[in-house]
C-alpha cells in the first residue's frame, strides 16, 4: 500500500544539536499514528515539514507522493491542520473566522461544522480575543475538520482542554479515524495516544527512537500478574514454583509474575490450595514500554562510554 505520508531521511539542522535528524516514518492510508516526545524534541518541526512550511536540510517529506517543500499547495487542501500554537487571524468572532476559513476552502456546506460545534459545545459567536485557551482550541479543531479532509494533522491538540472536553474531542478523532481518515497526532501525553492510535512513534532529541504497534501494547504476549498471599507458607511455596518472577516484595508477601497466555491456567491451578489476598493484572502501557526502551538505550549509551 502506498503510504499517504512518507518521511524519508528528513533532516533539518538548526545548529548546536537542535533540529531533527534522519527521520524516517511512513503513515498508511486510514492509519492513525501518534507522535510522542517531550517538549522541544522535534515534533512540531517534523509536522512543519509535512505542511511544507520549512525547507529540509536534507531528505524530504512526501504527501500522496508529492514532495512537501515544492508541492505542498497541491495537497494541503486535503489536510486538516491544528497548529500547536493557536493564533487566529485578526477577525472579530469565531463565526467570522470559520466563515473566512470556509471561504478560503471554497466550502459551502457548513452542516458538518455546525455538528462539530454542537459536539464540542463551542459558542463560536464569542470574540476571538476574549476566547479562553480551550475555546480557541475547539475553534481550531472545528476549522481543521469542517472541510472533511482526508488527512488530519494535529499538533498537541488537547492542551488546554479539560478532561471531559478532551474525551469528547478524542471521541471525534476516533470517529474520523473510523471513517478512514489518515491521522497524525503529536502529543506529550501517552494515555491519549494509547487510547486512539494504531502506531506511536517516539521522538527524542530530534531522532525517532522507536515506533511501536499499539496492538503489542494492548494485547501483550506476556502479562504481569501480582499476587498477595495471606500466610508465609503459601508465599514461600509459590516462590518455589516454576514461574518467571519479575518482582518480589517479601514485606507484603507479594509476588509479580510474567505469564504468557497459556500459563494463565497453570497459575490458577497452583493457587487453588492457597489463601490469596488478591490477584491483579499489572497493566502494560506505552509509558512503561518507552521507559523500558529508553532505559535500555541509556544503559547501552553508558556502556559505550
Amino acid at each position, binding site marked *: 500500500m502506498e503510504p499517504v505520508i512518507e518521511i524519508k531521511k528528513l533532516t533539518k539542522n538548526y545548529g548546536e544539536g537542535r533540529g531533527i535528524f534522519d527521520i524516517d516514518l511512513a503513515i498508511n492510508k486510514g492509519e492513525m499514528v501518534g507522535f510522542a516526545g517531550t517538549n522541544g524534541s522535534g515534533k512540531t518541526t517534523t509536522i512543519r515539514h509535512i505542511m511544507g512550511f520549512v525547507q529540509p536540510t536534507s531528505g524530504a517529506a512526501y504527501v500522496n507522493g508529492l514532495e512537501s517543500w515544492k508541492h505542498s*499547495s497541491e495537497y494541503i487542501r486535503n489536510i486538516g491542520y491544528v497548529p500547536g500554537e*493557536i493564533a487566529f487571524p485578526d477577525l472579530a468572532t469565531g463565526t467570522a473566522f470559520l466563515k*473566512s476559513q470556509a471561504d478560503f476552502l471554497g466550502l459551502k456546506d457548513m452542516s458538518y461544522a455546525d455538528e462539530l460545534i454542537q459536539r464540542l459545545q463551542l459558542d463560536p459567536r464569542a470574540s476571538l480575543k476574549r476566547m479562553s485557551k480551550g475555546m480557541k482550541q475547539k475553534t481550531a479543531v472545528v*476549522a481543521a475538520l469542517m472541510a472533511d479532509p482526508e488527512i488530519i494533522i494535529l499538533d498537541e491538540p488537547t492542551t488546554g482542554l479539560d478532561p471531559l472536553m478532551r474525551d469528547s474531542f478524542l471521541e471525534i478523532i476516533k470517529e474520523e479515524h473510523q471513517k478512514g481518515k489518515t491521522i497524525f497526532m503529536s502529543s506529550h501525553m501517552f494515555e491519549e495516544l494509547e487510547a486512539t492510535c494504531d502506531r506511536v512513534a517516539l521522538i527524542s532529541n530530534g531522532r525517532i527512537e522507536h515506533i511501536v504497534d499499539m496492538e503489542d501494547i494492548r494485547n501483550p504476549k506476556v502479562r504481569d500478574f501480582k499476587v498477595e498471599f495471606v500466610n508465609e507458607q503459601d508465599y514461600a511455596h509459590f516462590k518455589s514454583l516454576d514461574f518467571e518472577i519479575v518482582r518480589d516484595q517479601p514485606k507484603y508477601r507479594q509476588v509479580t509474575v510474567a505469564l504468557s497466555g497459556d500459563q494463565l491456567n497453570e497459575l490458577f491451578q497452583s493457587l487453588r490450595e492457597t489463601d490469596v489476598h488478591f490477584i491483579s493484572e499489572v497493566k502494560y502501557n506505552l509509558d512503561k514500554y518507552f521507559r523500558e526502551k529508553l532505559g535500555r538505550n541509556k544503559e547501552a549509551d553508558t556502556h559505550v562510554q
Partner: protein
Amino acid sequence: MFSKSLFKQSCKANGTMWIIITIAVCFMLSCVMLISGRGDISETKDAIQNTIIEGELTSALQKKALSYYEIGNSAMKHFDETFLKEYQTVYAGALTGGMPEEQAAGTASMAAYVAATKELQEVYVPGLISELGYEVDSQEAKEVEGVVFYVLNPMQEDGTYMFDDFYREHGEPVAHYTDLLATINDSIHTEERQKYVMNNCAPFMAGNMVAEENIQSVLETLSDYGVTREQYDEFGFSEYRNVKDIAMAAIVDYRANLEYRLDNMKDGETVESVKEDLQKEVTNSLLASLPEEVSDALDEVGQMDMYGILVGSIFFKMAGLLLPIIYMIMTSNALIAGQVDSGSMAYILSTSTKRRTVTFTQAAYLIGSLFVMFLCTAITSIVCLSIVEVETGLTWQKLLLLNLGAFLVMFAMSGICFLTSCWFDRSKHAMGLGGGLSMFFLVATMLGLFGSPILPSIIRMDALNYFNYVSIITLFDPISILDGTGVFIWKFCILAAIGCVCYVIGSIRFRKKDLPL
C-alpha cells in the same frame, strides 16, 4: 495569483484603521486648506518682510554706531598726541622764559588745547575724509566732521562749549574733553577716553538719525522696498531713545569683546582684522550689505506662493504623511510578519493558498488601500481649492500631481516596510527596521525643511539641508510641481522603482524562507 478570500480578510482586519486614518487626513487637509486660505497667509508674508527690514535697519544702525565710535576714538587719540607734543614744547619754552611752574602749566595746556583742536580741524579731519575717499562738503564728509567735533565738544574762546546745547536738548549729561586732559598721563586715560567717546558719539548719532531731514533721506532710499513712514516709526527708528540704545549697546558689546580679542590674538591676526571681524559679529547682519541682498530677499518673499508651499511642501510632503505612514507601518506588519509571528498564517497557507498568492494579495491590499486613501485626499483637496479664494498658483491638475507624489512616496516606503515584513519572522524586527526607517525619513524631511530652498534665504538654516539628502521623501518635489518644471517626473520614476523592487524582493524572500507555523 490573487486570493479574494484573503483580500476580504485583510480588509476586515485593517479596514477600521484605514477609515479612521483616511478621515483624519482628509479633515486635517481641509482645515489646512480652508483656514489658511482666508488671507492670513499674506499677513505672514508681510510679517516676514517686516522682520527682514527691521533686522537689516538695526544692523545698519549698529554698523554706523561702531564706525562713529572708531572715528571718534581715533580722532581723540590723535588729539591727545598733538596735545602732549604741543604742551611739552610750550611748557618747556615758558619755563625757560622764567615763568613760574604753575602758570607755565596753565598757559601750556591752553595753548596745547587750541593747537590740538586746530590740528584736528585743519589737518586730521580733512586728511581722514580724503583717505576715506569722500568729496569735500559731501554728506559723508560732513558726517565724519560732525562725529569728531561733537565728540570733542570744543571749548570756545568765551569759555563755553560748542555743543552743550545739543546734549542738553536730548537730556544727556554734558561732558567735556577738557576734564580728561588733567589725567592725560595716567594709565586709565585710554579707557576714560574710550568711555567718553562712547558716551558722546551715541547721542550724536541718535540725534542725527532722528533729525527729520535724515529720516526723509533714509525713507527715500528705503521706498524701493515699500517701507512707509508708519512702518519706520513702528520699528522705532525715528525715536531718539531707541536709536541711542541700539548704538550704545552695540558699542558696549564691541568694546568688551575687542579688549578680550586683542588680548588673545591668534597668529596671523592684525588689530585691523580683529576689529573688522568683530564689527561684523556685533552688527550681526543677516545679509552682507543692505541694498542688494535685502531687495533680493524681499523679492524672494514677495514671489513666494505661500499657499502652494503650505499645501505642497508642508502638508503633502510632511504633516499629511504622518498618519498614512503610521497606517502603513502597522498594516504592512499585520499583513505578513504579524501573522507569521502569531502563527495565524498557518490557517491561510493550509488552505492551498500559495505563498506567492499571499504576498501578491497582501501587497495589492496595501498598495490599493494607500491609493484609495490618497484618492480621497485628492478629492478633498480639489473641493477645498474650489471653495477658497486665495492668490495661488495651485490648480486642480497640480493638486492631483501633489497627491500622486504623496502616494508614490508612500508606495516606496510601504515597499520597504513590506520587504522587512516578509523578511523577518518577528513583528518587532520587521516594525523596528521598516517602521523606524520610514519614521526616520519623515523626521529627516521635517528637519530638512528648515534648510531647504523653499524657505527665504534669511531664515534658512543651511546645515539642516543635509537631512534632505538622506530622506527618500526628498524625491517628492512639490516645488517642481508648483513651478511646472518637469524635474519631478524622473524623481517620481525613482520612487516607483524603489517601491517595485522592494515589493518584488519581499515576495521572493517570503516564498523561499522557512515559516515557523
